[in-house]
């Protein structure tokens, strides 16, 4: 969500602290994913004051059968930065989806999205990621 380990850690601890205080007060919300929603909002709040990338038309490509080998060559931190650079709500959708911990209905709940929106964000995200992979690992450079 942030592409910055230090900020991520601060938000993680702030979220847990808030959760502990709420639990001590007996003020834990009924929503099952409130902790994750809270963390997401804190991340969005933290990046609000950051330098925002100019909105540009990202190139898109169809997902290919050999994308798997391109992805395997990716440095995890590069992928983290790429996802964190996406505008929200696409950033939240990609981050929550690829954590592979949540059902799509959970993601709709946490990120406050509709199915059509989530579907569009993920589909576009894949195509943009494929275009980025193609530019980063052109086919003729494949190992």
């Amino acid at each position: 969500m942030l592409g910055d380990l230090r900020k991520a850690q601060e938000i993680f601890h702030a979220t847990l602290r808030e959760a502990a205080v709420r639990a001590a007060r007996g003020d834990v919300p009924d929503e099952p994913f409130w902790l994750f929603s809270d963390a997401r909002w804190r991340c969005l709040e933290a990046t609000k004051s950051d330098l925002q990338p100019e909105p540009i038309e990202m190139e898109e490509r169809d997902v290919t059968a050999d994308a798997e080998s391109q992805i395997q060559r990716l440095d995890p931190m590069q992928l983290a930065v790429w996802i964190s650079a996406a505008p929200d709500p696409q950033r939240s959708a990609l981050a929550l989806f690829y954590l592979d911990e949540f059902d799509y209905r959970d993601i709709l709940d946490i990120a406050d999205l509709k199915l059509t929106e989530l579907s569009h964000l993920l589909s576009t995200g894949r195509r943009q990621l494929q275009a980025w992979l193609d530019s980063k690992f052109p086919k003729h450079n494949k190992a």
Partner: protein
Amino acid sequence: MNLLSSMRRQRFLLNCAPISARQPADRSMRAALSRADGSAEFTDQQKFDRAVAQVVHLIAIPAESAEWFSEKDVLPVAKRSWKSTLRNPAVWAISIAVVVIAGVFVFNFVSHLNDFPGSRTARKLLGIAASTRPVMLDPVNAEAGTLSDLFFMKHGLEHYDVPAEFAEFATIGCRVFEDDESRRIAQIWVSEKRMQFFLFPAERDTKTGAVQRFPGWRYVHQEGWTGAVTEHSGVCFMAAIRGGDKELAPYLSQPRQ
């Protein structure tokens, strides 16, 4: 939902298809996955998603934060409590069905508890009693007990005797007819409380042909009518009356079985 919107929804669902099998999928997602099974485009998407998820899991987490995570799932599958199980509509539906089936079983068991040889025929005859009109019978002005001679002489029916308890009642009419199993039934209408008497062959053992006897009087009930049945010499006699057991009890000399 028309076909087009249904296909569009499936497309939306497939774009959000779970990466790993451990995530629960709802019914609509399962249906979409089953329809897309084997499609090259979807297979590529799944491989793509799995590869990205693997890299995402390699993203370093600061040690200070990592210690908060156990090896267990972030969202362990919650065990269903008894309360939530009871609130499940499916559980309700099954419970109601089981209760209804059990109720029918108990009803059948209880209603057949007092069955005796010939009770099925007796119930059918109570139905006939309810629908019989006086004009359907031949007018007879005699005591009921004297009709056994008539049945023997005119219809060749032996032992079609009215028991002593009912022999002195004045008769309005009588007839002999065959039921749906070709058994010859004698029907007598008496003036006393508009009672009807039926005489019919007793049940016989299908193997030996022996009469299945039973002692005393037995009651049967059907459509608001009550019948008191007794067997003598291979012929059953039934006194039928509209009402309950109490209407017939005063006429029966022997205690109820």
